């Protein structure tokens, strides 16, 4: 029998269900007996802002001149109750990330970059550092279940207070900082023994439910003499009700974080399987505000996978007042930069895929407490890069807004958008491109 007489063979076919990554994870779990912990946000493909397009001006709409006619970007947050609402020059803010998860240099760089461009940055689950306060013109102070480092002096030093109920990467989960990153300074700030695996509480210790939250917010207002805007941050899961309850509890600002939002560390299963994409969360949150007559009175900040001025413009068009970025800001500082490829390879990964932020061995010196690694990040240069990136985002957002004929980015509206997929159309509540069909609305 010669080779020409062999019957046709089946080619090796990989399973879509048991793909290489899935099988590798099964083998890893079988070998170790412990779930996978990592940083960052979801890596799966989700309906996102890429599935939306803007309708530019046409015969029925006229655009604004790109380099001649003004397109405003400023936003005021905290106009409902706070005596001192905060004024930002651009509606893109830096999301909460802790000193502990990030190096002091990285926190300083975030403050520098945000301040250069006239926006705010936010503390995290580790208290406020002098570097961060000193370099942040506008600093939002997170009030978390752990209350690490919480004190009334920092509360009063802050420009706004963010009561964190949850975050998009892990709605229903608490913070996690493993022993490698509990350096003496981090341990002291958090009042914990050095080197332990710190697992923060997932619920606040002294309030449960919206009625208690209302009283808690009243206390924070009393302590700060009603000066500071008070935000309530929730992970996107039940956005309509969470937004309504936050408003009922007295929030000035609601922060809504989709499942694409990053985390310093948590279980991969949590990141990939709990919560909903930000695209699906904005319209229900806006509807809650509208139903209560509070849209634009209580401001809405959305986050989770915001990468560009286009994402920002789409979020604003869906009804948000501002967006927040975390992962994108870290990338702007230098996270996952190919210049460190050789070192990523040594860690068994590659630039762009590095997510073992919890291990504290970040070659870029950002998600680490190792003093030698942290020194690699120059806060001034990294801050400049972040400022450049924020400026580009703002310019991109203005470009789109002008093309849609808007003299302020807040004038963008759902009517300016269409969707490329049925899923995105249903989630964003805008028509499928080329049709007037919004799935999920009206009867069939």
């Amino acid at each position, binding site marked *: 029998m010669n080779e020409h007489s062999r019957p046709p063979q089946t080619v090796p076919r990989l399973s879509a269900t048991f793909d290489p990554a899935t099988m590798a994870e099964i083998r890893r779990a079988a070998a170790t007996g412990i779930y996978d912990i990592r940083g960052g946000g979801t890596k799966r493909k989700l309906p996102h802002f890429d599935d939306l397009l803007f309708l530019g001006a046409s015969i029925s709409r006229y655009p604004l001149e790109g380099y001649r006619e003004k397109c405003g970007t400023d936003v005021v947050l905290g106009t409902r109750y706070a005596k001192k609402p905060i004024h930002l020059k651009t509606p893109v803010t830096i999301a909460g990330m802790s000193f502990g998860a990030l190096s002091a240099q990285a926190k300083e760089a975030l403050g520098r970059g945000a301040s250069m461009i006239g926006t705010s940055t936010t503390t995290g689950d580790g208290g406020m550092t002098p570097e961060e306060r000193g370099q942040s013109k506008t600093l939002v102070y997170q009030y978390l279940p752990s209350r690490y480092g919480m004190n*009334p002096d920092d509360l009063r030093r802050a420009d706004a207070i963010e009561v964190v109920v949850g975050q998009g990467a892990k709605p229903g989960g608490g913070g996690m900082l493993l022993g490698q990153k509990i350096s003496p300074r981090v341990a002291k700030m958090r*009042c914990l023994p050095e080197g332990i695996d710190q697992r923060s509480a997932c619920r606040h*210790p*002294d309030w449960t439910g919206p009625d208690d939250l209302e*009283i808690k917010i*009243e*206390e924070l207002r009393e*302590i700060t*003499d009603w000066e500071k805007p008070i935000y309530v941050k929730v992970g996107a899961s039940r956005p309509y009700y969470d937004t309504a309850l936050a408003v009922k509890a007295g929030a000035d600002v609601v922060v809504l974080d989709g499942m694409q939002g990053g985390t310093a560390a948590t279980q991969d299963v949590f990141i990939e399987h709990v919560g909903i994409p930000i695209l699906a969360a904005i319209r229900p949150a806006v509807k809650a505000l509208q139903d209560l007559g509070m849209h634009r009175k209580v401001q809405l900040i959305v986050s989770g996978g915001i990468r560009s001025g286009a994402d920002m413009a789409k979020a604003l068009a869906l009804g948000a007042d501002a967006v927040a970025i975390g992962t994108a800001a870290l990338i702007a500082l230098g996270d996952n930069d190919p210049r460190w490829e050789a070192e990523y390879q040594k860690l068994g990964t590659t630039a762009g895929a590095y997510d073992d932020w919890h291990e504290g061995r970040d070659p870029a010196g950002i998600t680490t407490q190792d003093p030698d690694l942290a020194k690699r990040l120059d806060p001034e240069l990294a801050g400049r890069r972040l400022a450049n990136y924020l400026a580009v985002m703002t310019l991109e957002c203005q470009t789109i807004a002008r093309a849609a004929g808007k003299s302020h980015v807040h004038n963008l509206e759902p009517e300016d958008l269409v969707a490329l997929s049925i899923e995105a159309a249903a989630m964003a509540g805008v028509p499928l491109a080329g049709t007037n069909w919004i799935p999920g609305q009206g009867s069939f």
Partner: protein
Amino acid sequence: MNTIPTSQTVDLATVSLRELNQSLHRLGDRTNLSHWRILNPRGAHALACGLDADVTVEVDGDAGYYCAGMNKRATVIVHGNVGIGVAENMMSGRVYVKGDASQAAGATGQGGLLVVDGNTSGRCGISMKGIDIVVKGSIGPMSAFMAQAGSLVVFGDAGDALGDSIYEARLFVRGTVKSLGADCIEKPMKDQHRAELYAKLKEAGVAGEVDVGEFKRYGSARTLYNFHVDNASAY
């Protein structure tokens, strides 16, 4: 010759909580108004919270949630009961409750002293970070949950799951403990611990009321400080 007043009485039937707290926050270090008496609190929330002055505030009646929250330096005495979160996140100073306290008394407190003459409900001393708490009655379940530092002294009994996931806080209970939480164990009560307890009670002004020899000591077994899969069933 006029004398400078050193005390102030505020009737919450006629003055708003906001006005009262604002007045207390404005007190400087050189204030002569070192003694305040609050009438008709009627369960007001956030009463005398955020103080930062060497003054004494006496509340004649019951207070609501977060009384004396985030207190610094001040002495707050409540002649009544208090709601959830009395002296929450206290930094320093003293808070005395002459009646009972609801849940989360002294929660996340970083320093100072909280004394409750009566009982407290659940989660007393939750996530405490350096505060000293003395409860002359009994405490409810899940007290000292994730307690990081400081001491909790209980003259009476403790409810279920005392000290669950405790870090380095020190617990002393004279009565019975219904159950211990994950990683919380009874530890030997040696002379040094009796001396430590006596010093705490003396600081609280109640050293003569109980025999320190009647207390048992509880704290962390430290087996859950670093995650190990063999301990997964403890969570």
